[in-house]
């Protein structure tokens, strides 16, 4: 492989370590976590030890569901420069017993409503920007299921 082709090779990098993008493009990206073998607590991404019970045995990797439900949310109107606002910023509970922050689409940000509580959402991934090395930065986002 020549140097030119190597530098042109763009990578698809996850925006957070707990989003995994398989090498094989036919495989779907997914969120993953670690489960304590002693107490069952689940954490996003990798862990050194269990933050609930303090157990130091290696935690077990878990593949997290791509469907969850909205626990709570805010609608952020004033944000850092360069971002589109408003956006629905939710806490999404996953069935494995862990939660994830997510932007939720398919809701009207101008009309926040108690009806949003408990709404089922599904994860999808999207390129959100290019990093300084030219790699794609991939984020997990959520869409309301009807």
């Amino acid at each position: 492989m020549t140097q030119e082709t190597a530098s042109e090779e763009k990578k698809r990098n996850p925006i957070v370590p707990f989003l995994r993008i398989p090498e094989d493009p036919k495989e779907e990206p997914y969120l993953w976590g670690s489960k304590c073998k002693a107490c069952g607590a689940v954490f996003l991404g990798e862990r050194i030890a269990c933050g609930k019970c303090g157990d130091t045995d290696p935690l077990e990797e878990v593949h997290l569901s791509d469907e969850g439900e909205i626990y709570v949310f805010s609608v952020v109107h004033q944000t850092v420069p360069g971002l589109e606002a408003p956006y629905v910023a939710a806490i999404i509970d996953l069935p494995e017993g862990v939660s994830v922050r997510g932007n939720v689409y398919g809701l009207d940000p101008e009309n926040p409503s108690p009806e949003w509580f408990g709404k089922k959402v599904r994860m999808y991934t999207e390129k959100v920007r290019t990093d300084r090395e030219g790699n794609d930065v991939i984020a997990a986002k959520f869409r309301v299921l009807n």
Partner: protein
Amino acid sequence: MRDVAIVGAGMIKFGRYPDKDVVSLAADAAIGALKDAGISINEVEMVASGNLYQSNAMIGQRIMKEIGATGVPVVNVANACATGSTAFREAYMAVASGMYDVALAIGSEQMGKMGLLGAGGGNRDYSTEGVMGTGLMPGVFGQAGVEHMRKYGTKMEHFAKISVKNHKHGVHNPYAQYQQETPLEDVMNARMIAWPNTLYMCCPTGDGAAAAVLMSAEKAKQHTTKPIWVAASALTSDPWQERNPTMFDVNTLTRNAAKLAYDQAGIGPEELSQVELHDCFATAELIHYENLGLCGDGEAGDFIDRGDPQIGGRIPVNASGGLLSKGHPLGATGVANILEIVWHLRGQAGGRQVENSKVGLAHVIGLGSACTIHIIKK
């Protein structure tokens, strides 16, 4: 542990001081506290200095170089929004332990216009803000309020009424950055920052400093006939909770600190004359009514509707105007909350005085996490 008295209180008006540096702001507050106590820096045996944004800049020692470098031990404290109150607690423990008789606690911060959006930094290419939810404080505390909505059907108006109350109180506080009433209509219709918090439901940021002189009982009696006592000092961090840290939990550690503090003081919330609590956002104040046991779970909406937390109400909350009026210079906030209680107990709170105040509670919470509660009594 020995009894500890607060003998000196000094504070500058919170606001913006672009022409001054944080050391001179802190020195002003420290000198004010020493004068109020009727002592000189030479009598101070230990100094605890709280400053967050410049936590590696040896602010405490630099203050001493301004006001009298006596060579005593100085510790610099950083503990998120609870930085100042943690410094106060270090000074309290230094005296309570019997190691020192006179300690000086100073809290200071210079934030300028950086605001709560200014924090962060790091690699912007991999910032999750706005693409995977929010970590910005208005949104985080928005979610905390929305959780109360989900559990109890609380409405945006309930949170807005807290902003109205605190700004009404703040009109009479000369130390407050803003001394301006905000009618309900204005609060509801103000620019939305992060639902349900509008502009007037978010605390302003700025610069500030506050300082307190603490003494052992024996020493205090040499300087005052009316010492104010620290009846409890509690500090907690987050216990494990299922959604944390994805969703910051501002409730559990506050409840844990409240229990510790009430046990130490040997009183319950119904015996409090007043409370200064951490209203960084209006949504935060409402949930802390319940966390501190000022009302039962699910009753915070009715509590504000009835006017219980206003001056003249059942249990005045944030007579100072709260952070919503005063501003929130992170390192100074925790000391300032305690001083507010001191002034009320002394009957020195002017137009915002809570009549016949005998015992007050000062609460501060920093995300990430640290919660302090001090109970202060006559």
